[in-house]
């Protein structure tokens, strides 16, 4: 069984949960991952500072789309402050695998748009390797070579 393309991931990719439109959202945000061309948007309903409902929409690779589906139920009920604390570790726990540096942005795109909608930020979640990859990722890439 492939560690990445497990039934769990493929099921969420083919039958994504909480995808579609949400009428009159309190917050929304869209972005893309230039590497894969993944596109992801989110619409969120709030009760006070808590997420009461949300819907993703977009297209892209299995990792980006499945991750959005997988985290969607987990995000309901979280406060804005709690969402602000989420990072790559949250994604790794949710999808049950540590993504390689080349696929990390695919996995983090859905969290990025949720944080974008609620926090008004255009930054990638903490721990995302970008032009300045952190030392752990560099070491890991070297080990892979």
């Amino acid at each position, binding site marked *: 069984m492939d560690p*990445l393309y497990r039934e769990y991931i493929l099921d969420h990719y083919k039958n994504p949960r909480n995808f579609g439109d949400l009428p009159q959202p309190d917050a929304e945000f869209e972005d893309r991952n230039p*590497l894969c061309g993944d596109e992801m948007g989110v619409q969120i309903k709030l009760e006070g500072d808590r997420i009461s409902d949300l819907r993703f929409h977009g297209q*892209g*690779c299995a990792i980006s789309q499945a991750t959005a589906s997988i985290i969607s139920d987990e995000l309901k009920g979280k406060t804005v402050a709690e969402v602000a604390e989420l990072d790559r570790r949250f994604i790794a726990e949710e999808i049950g695998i540590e993504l390689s540096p080349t696929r990390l942005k695919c996995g983090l795109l859905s969290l990025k748009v949720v944080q974008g909608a609620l926090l008004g930020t255009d930054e990638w979640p903490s721990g995302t390797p970008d032009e300045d990859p952190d030392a752990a990722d560099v070491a890991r890439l070297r080990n892979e070579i």
Partner: protein
Amino acid sequence: MEAATAQVALEGVRTDFPILAREVEGRSIAYLDSAATAQKPAAVIEAISSYYRNSNANVHRSMHVLAAEAEALYEGGRLKVAELVGARAGEIVLVRNATEAINLVRFTWARENVGPGDTVLITAMEHHSNIVPWQLLCAEQGARLEYLEVDGQGRLDLTDLDERLAGGVKLVALTHVSNVLGTINPVAEVAERAHAAGVRVLVDGAQAVPQFPVDVGATGADFYAFTGHKMYGPTGIGVLWGKRELLDEMPPFLGGGSMIKAVEDDHSTWAAVPAKFEAGTPAIAESAGLGAAADFMTGLGMEAVRAHERELTAYALERISAVSGVTVYGPADAAERGALVSFTVEGIHPHDLAELSNREGVAIRAGHHCAQPLMRRLGVPATARASFAVYNTTDEVDRLVDAVESAKSIFGA
């Protein structure tokens, strides 16, 4: 006969590439990403290493033996690559890559010849390296950027070319071979029609020079840009060929050492072409490597290279097209194509396909291939692309097809 020639060329050639002995995921690597960068034959690696081991010195104006050897290696690279593309060495400007070659034209010739209200005409199948410099130029000069569109078979639509050329176009910039569609463009025809309208032509030959015989003069281009690393040479070196009379008239690009004749307190005069465009210590080791790459290609014979790659591309087109759910982009006939096949598979994102192919030791590329305007026109966010070089085999194409089938079964597609 062509096929037999290709098989002979192929037989000896794999062992020239040390990296092909590597294993990935327990299998010998099937490297199908040469349109991104080609692997390097041992002779190229050795030429670079030998320069540093035996001959390292700066070029120009030194009397000692190392400097003379370094100069010979640097200028030797220029001479060999000139011979490969049918040019005179004095028309070959050594730069960092094809992108820098195009930007050189932007900052010199184009700034003096493209003004407010003028048009730069490019095509919808350009690599970003032949789009973004012209966007920047047009913004700077108050000029317009227009596109020649691509038809359903992946060919340029040239029906109204003459009318468009007559409307204030100063430069046509187009690729010789599309890095996504594989289309071989009729550059000589475009150049002839452009010249009839008094319009200059720049051709991006980054994909073409490694794949078939290119005579830069016969292309009709005024400028022809290509890069070392796609033609089995090192990274960090590329070529701008230009018509000598144009190069002579153009102002310098970067200022500094080596590009001057005399430096007064308040102004300078310029060295002759090509030195005028080569400020600073050049890429000496890389030029030695580029020369070795040109020797390698000349040794194989570019007709034989083309015959082998066309045969392989025809085989790949046939096998990949036969897989259900696959869409192949670009011309259907391998005779109209360079050595690559871009495709998508229904229900599987190209990045997932590339990752799963890697599990089988098959290296392909997935993404927008630095051609986002073309991706928009194709209506896809990305494609998978398999590209071929002299060392590839039909067996490797079979492994790719197996990997696609395997990905389909994992995805249930």
